[in-house]
């Protein structure tokens, strides 16, 4: 049971480039989330999904896009990378209606230069 898997673990981008951060979970959870963590701060919610085909904005969605075509996958897309998007990105999942903790991936460390 792999849990929540994020790829890549590290990436350096140039300003204006685009990329997709991958997230997959094998627990058949309905709910999935993307958070970002800036240095010295707690995590902030970027986007979330309550099921395949359903996504919604979180606290800091500007500059990002998401899609949820399957239960397992929830990719995060950066279209025009900016230095302000340098951060560590965490993906998480949760079984809807459960009294269980949210499960987190190991994170993707992204630097934009």
């Amino acid at each position: 049971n792999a849990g929540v898997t994020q790829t890549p673990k590290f990436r350096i981008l140039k300003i204006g480039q685009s990329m997709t951060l991958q997230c997959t979970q094998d627990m058949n959870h309905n709910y999935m989330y993307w958070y970002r963590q800036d240095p010295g701060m707690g995590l902030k919610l970027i986007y979330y999904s309550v099921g395949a085909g359903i996504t919604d904005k979180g606290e800091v969605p500007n500059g990002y896009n998401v899609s949820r075509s399957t239960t397992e996958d929830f990719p995060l897309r950066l279209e025009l990378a900016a230095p302000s998007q340098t951060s560590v990105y965490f993906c998480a999942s949760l079984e809807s209606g459960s009294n269980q903790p949210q499960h987190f991936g190991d994170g993707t460390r992204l630097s934009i230069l």
Partner: protein
Amino acid sequence: GIQVEQSPPDLILQEGANSTLRCNFSDSVNNLQWFHQNPWGQLINLFYIPSGTKQNGRLSATTVATERYSLLYISSSQTTDSGVYFCAVASLPGGTSYGKLTFGQGTILTVHP
């Protein structure tokens, strides 16, 4: 939205000492999790504790939901306990929050040998 405040912001201990970390939140919650972020940046879930008391080895946690706070106790601290401790909550403002977590700013714990 819900506010989460953690105290103290920094804590320095000698190995073997005990400590208490506090998390205050501003609204009713249906999820509260304590995390340890290790030096490699991984988020380790310590407790899922929206109410009540739990213990896991040298760590224990208590949440008093009616008074809107949670405490994390670390006894006989070890150098491996060093890192950042986060409290995160999901609120239930008359409806479902879809499990979206709001994080505190964290407590940086340093344990010296």
